[in-house]
């Protein structure tokens, strides 16, 4: 079914999806495949992979070594995304830990999976019951077993490679094998596992959205070691693959289309969304079902700015929870030089992770952690460090080689608990190029995270000793991980939550808000696969609703 387009630029579709990232794209593909007319409105531009690769190679050394994963992506002047080199101040961060919330996300067709590392973790069953089991955080209105079939479908859709040996799985509760077995490890992953596993740290293969054989329309991974910020060959899953599949099934994608208003009827059903095109002309898209999947910052921003007479505090916001409970995995890094040459940087960006502290009774008191062995080449940092020593000639060559092949960077993730004061609001003073309010974020972490940091730091000191670490360092300030969650939180009770277990808004029977926003617990693992699974569960709900309409 095709979207109806009118002479004035307006449109009508069975399903209108706002946002073309992994969540919106998966829903669009399913519904287009079910013969529904599907319109995707994306605020940002279309991207050309080859151009983005060239942009990355042309960033200066400081930007590349500083992990500037944003500047290489062209932005629409009418849809700003965060930049840090130099900071563009799009998101104003306040609160004790505001500085740990510098999120990098992409507003473009295909969304932020353009620059993810494709880690495809599942939450543990217990992560859905943090309140019931550990007395902290919030419980989900759905269980792991409710979501498990959708995890399988998401893994299939994204072509995930993961360990089919249960001894290497986290979690082990699975109804289907992975579509592809684990990505084979390089020397560094193998050696680190040999050293740490006798001590209970449990290094396991990271399930990841790439394969070492061709998968559907994607080539085999050739270990270009540039998953972040851009896979040069398209072997890594990103949502552009699903957007293209949805288009092949008849979905229409309008890029550079910034949704800013949501119309509702007397029954508080959504009747239309309104958007600005690249010439700042406003248009209206009517439909039967509406999905807003922009990410856990842009979705609440839109819901709040779209407040109307019937919904004066924002769309879907009778609970006053829209924008609250914001979470991200609080991150920090541990770096050292190991006595063994580990040669990290061969293969994809991340292939192994220490999950020994993903769960335990301690979670009633402090945060769990996971410790990723970063496999991004250390040659950049090694060069920076060696140059600072003022070396030249063969001494410099040898020092860079030594620091590159012995260098280790561990990326640690902690689990924050949902808290209403961690909140996105609309700026009263700052506006984007369309005059729409920019986001303000207040962010404060409590002792649950800080105690988790202390426990992890102690483990890291022990791990360092196992490698006879030289220049052992643990960062003390927390960094963002771009895993935004919680801001349209899911729950049973419409009084204290925004959506139900299908990501359907309590306040609007034909509006769904899937993605990271509904997640009531963060776990310590990357959120994308859970977001994708929630998206597919949402797609089934949308499909049922349209069939019964």
């Amino acid at each position, binding site marked *: 079914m095709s979207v109806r387009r009118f002479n004035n630029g307006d449109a009508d579709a069975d399903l209108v999806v706002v946002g073309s990232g992994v969540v919106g794209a998966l829903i669009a593909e399913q519904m287009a495949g079910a013969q529904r007319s599907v319109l995707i409105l994306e605020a940002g531009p279309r991207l050309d992979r080859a151009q983005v*690769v060239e942009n990355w*190679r*042309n960033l*200066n*050394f*400081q930007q590349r070594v*500083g*992990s*500037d*994963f*944003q500047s290489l992506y062209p932005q629409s002047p009418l849809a700003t995304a965060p930049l*840090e080199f130099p900071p563009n101040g799009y998101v104003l961060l306040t609160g004790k830990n505001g500085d740990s919330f*510098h*999120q990098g996300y992409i507003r473009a067709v295909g969304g932020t999976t353009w*620059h*993810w*590392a494709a880690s495809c973790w599942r939450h543990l069953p217990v992560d859905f019951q943090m309140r019931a089991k550990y007395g902290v955080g919030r419980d989900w209105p759905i269980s792991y077993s409710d979501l498990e079939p959708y995890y399988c479908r998401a893994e299939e859709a994204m072509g995930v490679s993961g360990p089919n040996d249960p001894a290497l799985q986290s979690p082990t509760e699975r109804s289907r094998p992975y579509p592809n077995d684990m990505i*084979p490890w390089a020397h560094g992953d193998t050696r680190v596992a040999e050293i740490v596993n006798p001590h209970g740290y449990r290094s396991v293969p990271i399930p990841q959205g790439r394969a070492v054989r061709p998968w559907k329309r994607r080539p085999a*991974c*050739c*270990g*270009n*070691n540039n998953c*972040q910020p851009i896979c040069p060959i398209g072997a890594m899953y990103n949502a552009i693959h699903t957007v293209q599949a949805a288009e092949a099934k008849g979905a229409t994608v309008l890029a550079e289309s910034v949704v800013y208003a949501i119309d509702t009827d007397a029954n508080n059903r959504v009747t239309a969304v309104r958007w600005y095109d690249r010439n700042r002309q406003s248009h209206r898209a009517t439909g039967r079902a509406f999905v807003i999947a922009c990410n856990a910052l842009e979705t609440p921003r839109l819901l709040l700015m779209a407040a109307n007479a019937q919904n004066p505090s924002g769309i879907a916001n009778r609970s006053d929870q829209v924008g609250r409970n914001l979470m991200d995995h609080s991150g*920090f*890094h541990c770096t050292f*030089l190991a*006595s*063994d*040459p580990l*040669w990290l*940087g*061969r*293969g994809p960006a*991340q292939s192994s992770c220490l999950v020994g502290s993903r769960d335990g009774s301690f979670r009633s008191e402090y945060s769990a952690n996971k410790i990723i062995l970063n496999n991004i*080449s250390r*040659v950049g*940092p090694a*060069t*920076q460090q060696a*140059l600072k020593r003022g070396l*030249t*000639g*063969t*001494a*410099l*060559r*040898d020092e*860079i*080689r*030594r620091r590159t*092949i*012995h260098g280790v960077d561990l990326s640690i993730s902690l689990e924050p608990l949902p808290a209403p004061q961690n909140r996105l609001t609309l700026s009263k003073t700052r506006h984007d190029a369309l005059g729409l309010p920019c986001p303000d974020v207040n962010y404060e972490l409590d002792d649950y995270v800080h105690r988790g940091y202390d426990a992890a730091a102690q483990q890291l000191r022990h791990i360092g000793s196992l490698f006879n670490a*030289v*220049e052992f*360092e643990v*960062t003390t300030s927390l*960094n*963002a991980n*771009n895993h935004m969650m919680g801001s349209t939180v899911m729950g049973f009770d419409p009084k204290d939550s925004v959506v139900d277990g299908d990501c359907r808004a309590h306040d609007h029977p034909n509006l769904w808000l899937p993605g990271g926003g509904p997640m009531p617990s963060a776990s310590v693992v990357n959120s994308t696969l859970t977001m994708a699974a929630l998206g597919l569960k949402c797609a089934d709900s949308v499909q049922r609703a349209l069939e019964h309409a």
Partner: protein
Amino acid sequence: MPNKDSVTLLPRRAVLAMVPAAALCFWFRETALAADSVTTPTDAFLLLSKLLTGFPDINPELAIRLREALLNVESTTSQAIARLIGLHASDDSTLMMTARDAGLGEAALAVVGAWYTGTVGSDAHAEVVAYADALMYRTVADGLAPPTYALGGPAWWVSAPPPAGVSPPMAEHAQPGTQSTRGVKPS
């Protein structure tokens, strides 16, 4: 395709490893002596760069572009580089000692940094001259390609990495932390 240097470095490294240290000193002396007969500033910069970087076969075309970028970044560098070229030394450490005595240490290190990182200057004034040809990648080209390139086809990385070829890190390498947590570190 990986850059051409990464393809040719392996045999070159192997050859260099077999060359006795005395012979290397002789080679460097020859380089410095050759500097007496060079006429153009470009040639002189190339010879200076060979001495400072430790790579005898650096790309002359890149030398032209790096020199231009260095001269563009700040006007004082131009003079400093001209004076650097005038210094005579048989190896990089002697050259650095002489350069520091002449107040040219920073300029010499700027030349080294440009070759190794491919970037001249920093922040808003940075100019990117080279990506895959930056010399930092040649130090490990037998085991790591510049990111975005690859050393083989699917799963090439399961093969054993090459021998270290350098001594392991020692405690005296310790220095204050350099890692910034300001940047975005997604995973």
